[in-house]
């Protein structure tokens, strides 16, 4: 096990934190401590320098203007791209997911440039996707997630996957990317429309990220309160299908 604490960077929560996304960082920290792992959380506000030597980078959802501001600041910084090259992992939700791709729609519907860390691009869905989202993870080799993914989606983006990425999961209930798939993954970069927050409702995904950071597989630790919440939410997603 690594000597130094796992370094987790929360990117621009003031811009990208609309849907309780702070819960993802809280979940990483909480689940790390369940495994006896120390974690340092660094919260980056716009204007601050983003380190390129951390282990896990997390960003959430946001409004259109904030999303464009975040994408511009991240492109100017270049730190996220350097960090990924060094083996760091990224979990990006909703607006954060969209800005990891090649382009996404701004407030006026024009294409804004993203970071190109995921081979996807986003345009608009005919109708906003709002509601419970449940999805079956695929290619279990990429993450150690074997159980159904559960979350809540609220986005107007249709995300189209290129050849350089794999979908994270197949939608069983809800909209996701818009073509039956949900999210995208390449290497250790993950984008998804699951909030709720994502890692709170899917602790296995948090354990995947933490496992990558320490270079060893983590056996899942199940908490009753979380399990009960998962059961309830997956049940309600099936019912509302």
């Amino acid at each position: 096990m690594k000597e130094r604490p796992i370094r987790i960077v929360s990117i621009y929560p003031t811009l990208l934190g609309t849907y309780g996304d702070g819960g993802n960082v809280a979940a990483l920290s909480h689940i790390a401590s369940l495994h006896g792992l120390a974690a340092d959380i660094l919260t980056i506000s716009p204007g601050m320098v983003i380190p390129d030597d951390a282990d896990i980078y997390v960003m959430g959802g946001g409004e259109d203007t904030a999303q464009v501001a975040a994408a511009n600041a991240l492109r100017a910084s270049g730190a996220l791209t350097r960090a990924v090259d060094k083996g760091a992992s990224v979990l990006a939700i909703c607006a954060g997911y969209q800005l990891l791709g090649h382009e996404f729609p701004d407030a006026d519907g024009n294409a804004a440039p993203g970071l190109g860390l995921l081979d996807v691009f986003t345009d608009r869905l005919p109708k906003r996707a709002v509601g419970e989202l449940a999805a079956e993870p695929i290619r279990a080799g990429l993450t150690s997630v074997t159980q159904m993914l559960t979350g809540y989606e609220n986005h107007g983006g249709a995300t189209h996957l290129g050849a350089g990425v794999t979908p994270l999961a197949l939608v069983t209930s809800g909209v996701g990317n818009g073509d039956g798939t949900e999210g995208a993954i390449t290497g250790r970069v993950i984008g998804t429309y699951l909030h709720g927050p994502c890692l709170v409702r899917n602790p296995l995904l948090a354990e995947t990220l933490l496992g990558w950071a320490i270079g060893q597989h983590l056996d899942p630790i199940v908490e009753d309160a979380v399990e009960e919440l998962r059961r309830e939410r997956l049940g309600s997603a099936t019912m509302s299908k």
Partner: protein
Amino acid sequence: MERVNTSLRTKLAVTAGRLAAATSRTLGRGEGMVVGGKVTLGLSPHALADLAGGRVAALVSATNGKTSTTRLLATAASQAGPVATQSTGANMTEGVLWALANGPADAPAILEVDEAYLPRVLAATRPKVVLLANLSRDQLDRMSEVAMLARKWRRMLAENPDVVVVANADDPIVAFAAEKAQQIIWVAAGQEWTADSSVCPECGTLLSRDGTDWSCSGCGRARPKTSWQFEWEKTGTAVGPDGQRYDLASLQLPGRFNASNATMALAVCAELGLDLAKAVTLMSTVTSVSGRFATVVAGSLRIRLLLAKNPAGWSELLDIMPPAPTPVIIIINSNDADGRDPSWLWDVPFERLKGRTVIASGNRRRDLAVRLLHAGVDAVVIEDPFAADAVLPAGTRELAVIDCAATYTAFQKLRDPSNEELAL
């Protein structure tokens, strides 16, 4: 006295609306206000303008606190005679119409209006003053985004140049919405919740903040100079443009936010030419507002009922709860009127409840339980904490009154008239 401005058509439409409302009440479908308002508007599309007839003194809008602020302001304004205002928090077009149609005839009106409905209600009712207090995230799966709402308010004020705006300068989104008005009274009313105003709504640049001061390096926008100030040190003080201080310690509505609401209401009173000392005295007679802060009996418990709908509101409520280890009840629902997505729970600083046991209830009690687990707060999950046989944390039943904070639909259920309201 006949209302000269009310057309015959509107009079007939109001009568038909009352009839529809009475039928709806008889059938046990609630107060009938929405039905009655819809019928009236269907028969006389200009009914709102007809009924307003130049007597609307003020409209109040905000994400949080509009019902309380409206009640404080209407009570203060009653020094000059009867006031037409909502008796419940019904604040969309039908609720406004109902208050005008069924309140004291020809009396000045003071009305709360839903943020999204404000542009059309303002255009129809042509108020003398509009109070704009705060804008933050609230039910994002239902409402427009915050910045979009601000742009709608901005357009509304450009199209209605006669209205005097009383606005909170400490909320950058409100300031952006209000700045184009011809007459603005800026109030330093404070802003506890800054997470929804981190970027400039005009140019998207991150706002610089220094205490309550804020500015944008992108477009040069900055916090306006204020004429009214709000001060808080355990109790509130409002300071007028002339330096006159109004002690708000006698307010019975609890917390910093209600004192801030009273300060904004006082600034409106000044514009309406009311006596401000009398206004403070009258505002201090308000003990609860449509069930908020009221003590009620719920099953086997006596509770102080608190309503919170979004992170900004919750953040304020946690401050007025008694200190640990006193247990509290929190009820989280996700019915339509609550917002379907409770992920905002992760934006509420529940860590402040450490050292006590929280009784978690509501149809999203499991989300709350996990949130509290991560916050390091002990919780018991109980479907019905008011049942006589509910297993409650030690000491709960010995409390004379326990705080119960709830989302909208849970709150409404608890303040059902069958729960007798106790005189405090």
